[in-house]
């Protein structure tokens, strides 16, 4: 148990350190000392660097929480919204809005995406609950292919409508396009994280299943609905503003659960922070590894996240 304070310290320090590093990295040289003397430098910081860093933090925290909530709803540790149909349903929604109302605002697109994401996730949840609980790996597998089929439909429709380049933007998460004035919707993610923390006890009870929840007088149905809305809204915002970023929602809740358990009143803030740290780290790697070019953070996470996930998967079986 002595690892706990250290882990917390590490996450906290990591968040600060990476935040600072993220502000310093960019194609244009930006000496931090000059910010207070040079108006141009300050401008660069406020218009580009700061918004990007804040967007990464918000998205990382939001996706980690969305993964956590979905894992509770499905009662399976190996799912997350971006790879199990929610993200793809959201992309389908944006595509539909873009096709039907080409002039729709980004908020409208998010709304459309949220609605389809809600529908897609509800279908997934319904089927997942019917799969036998004795085979825990069937559910994530089902989710991956379910997401794949919806993704194929998105690609096909976009290909027909000659919108493939947009689909690429929604499916490949990256932060290079984030500037002041183009990411502010992401602050809704902060509200979602706060909401999750507000209902943390209820979520913990819900994670123990319907019967335990009912026995404790919790309206299980309502917490499931609330959770679905949270998952759908977070995923849609991420897809519309920065694109799909896999594995954050999958890996982070598992890591935090190992270190501090599932009592969300205490663990949830750490899930959010660890999500932010992971995404910041991957975004920084993506910016530095082929400097001055950028590798999309989604691609970096495809490697880092799947590696971490395999580690979780096999670390678990070896213990059991």
């Amino acid at each position: 148990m002595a690892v706990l304070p250290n882990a917390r310290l590490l996450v906290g320090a990591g968040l600060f350190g990476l935040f600072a590093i993220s502000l310093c990295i960019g194609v244009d040289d930006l000496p931090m000392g000059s910010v207070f003397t040079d108006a141009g430098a300050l401008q660069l910081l406020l218009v580009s660097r700061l918004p990007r860093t804040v967007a990464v933090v918000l998205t990382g925290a939001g996706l980690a929480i969305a993964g956590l909530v979905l894992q509770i709803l499905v009662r399976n540790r190996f799912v997350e919204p971006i790879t199990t149909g929610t993200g793809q349903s959201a992309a389908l929604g944006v595509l539909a809005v873009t096709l039907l109302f080409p002039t729709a605002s980004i908020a409208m697109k998010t709304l459309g995406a949220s609605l389809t994401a809600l529908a897609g996730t509800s279908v997934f949840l319904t089927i997942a609950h019917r799969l036998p609980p004795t085979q825990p790996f069937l559910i994530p597998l089902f989710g991956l292919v379910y997401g794949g089929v919806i993704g194929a439909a998105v690609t096909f429709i976009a290909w027909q409508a000659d919108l493939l380049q947009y689909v690429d933007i929604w499916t490949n998460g990256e932060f290079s396009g984030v500037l002041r004035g183009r990411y502010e919707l992401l602050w809704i993610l902060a509200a979602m994280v706060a909401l999750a923390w507000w209902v943390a006890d209820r979520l913990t009870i819900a994670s123990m299943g319907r019967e335990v929840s009912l026995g404790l007088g919790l309206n299980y149905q309502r917490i499931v609905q609330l959770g679905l809305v949270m998952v759908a809204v977070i995923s849609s915002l991420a897809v519309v503003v920065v694109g799909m970023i896999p594995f954050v929602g999958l890996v982070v809740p598992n890591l935090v659960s190992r270190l501090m358990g599932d009592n969300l009143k205490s663990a949830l803030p750490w899930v959010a922070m660890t999500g932010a740290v992971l995404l910041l780290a991957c975004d920084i790697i993506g910016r530095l590894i082929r400097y001055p070019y950028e590798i999309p953070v989604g691609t970096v996470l495809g490697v880092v996240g799947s590696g971490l996930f395999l580690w979780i998967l096999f670390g678990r079986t070896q213990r059991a």
Partner: protein
Amino acid sequence: MIEINNVSLRLGGTQILEDVSLTMPKGGVTALVGPNGAGKSSLLSLIARLQPLQTGSISVDGLPVDTTPSRRLAKTLAILRQDPAVASRLKVRELVGFGRFPHQRGRIDANDLLLIEAALQQFGLMDLADRFLDNLSGGQRQRAMVAMAFCQGTDYMLLDEPLNNLDMLFARQLMRDLRAAADNDRRTVIVVLHDINHAAVYADRIVAMKSGRVVADGPPAEVLRPDVLAQVFGYDMDVIDVGGAPLVLHHR
């Protein structure tokens, strides 16, 4: 008092319960016994509103279970289902603490802390309080779940085969704890039991069910008679008297 009137239940074309009427007064330990598929667990689920009522009515202390708000009922009865399979990584103390949820909605005060410690004490969990559930044995986890139901502080405690996964030592310990909860804390304990001899020793009253109906209902000495047992379980068995309590030789 729990009043069950003309309750029937059909699930997927199978008749699970057929016109069950039963009254269970407040206090004491009541054991539900019967062969597999008799409908004991279903009846328990109906009383605890885990399963929606189809026909008939059930009320607990005058509260109809189908219309009373779930949160209100959670202050009157606690339910522990068979194999709740809690996969969450919670510490024992945290789990037991969630028993206070119906009263506080998450804000634990000094009084709650006392009740949590008392529940841990009562079920011998003090040494395990800071361990994670997934590091415990099946029997220890089961006791933690019972302690959580106890900590809910309700007049009624409903338990569905709590002795599953328990070895003889822990099974006896749990039955004694339940007896103590009834005697010292004036809880009303309703428990589904597979082992009829545990019922013989620890229950005040035995309700025997078969094929969705109540076949016998009374104190152990009345229910645990060869003729009744043969009717319930479908074969003949001897009953002997050991120190004033009936002992059913069901295994011979």
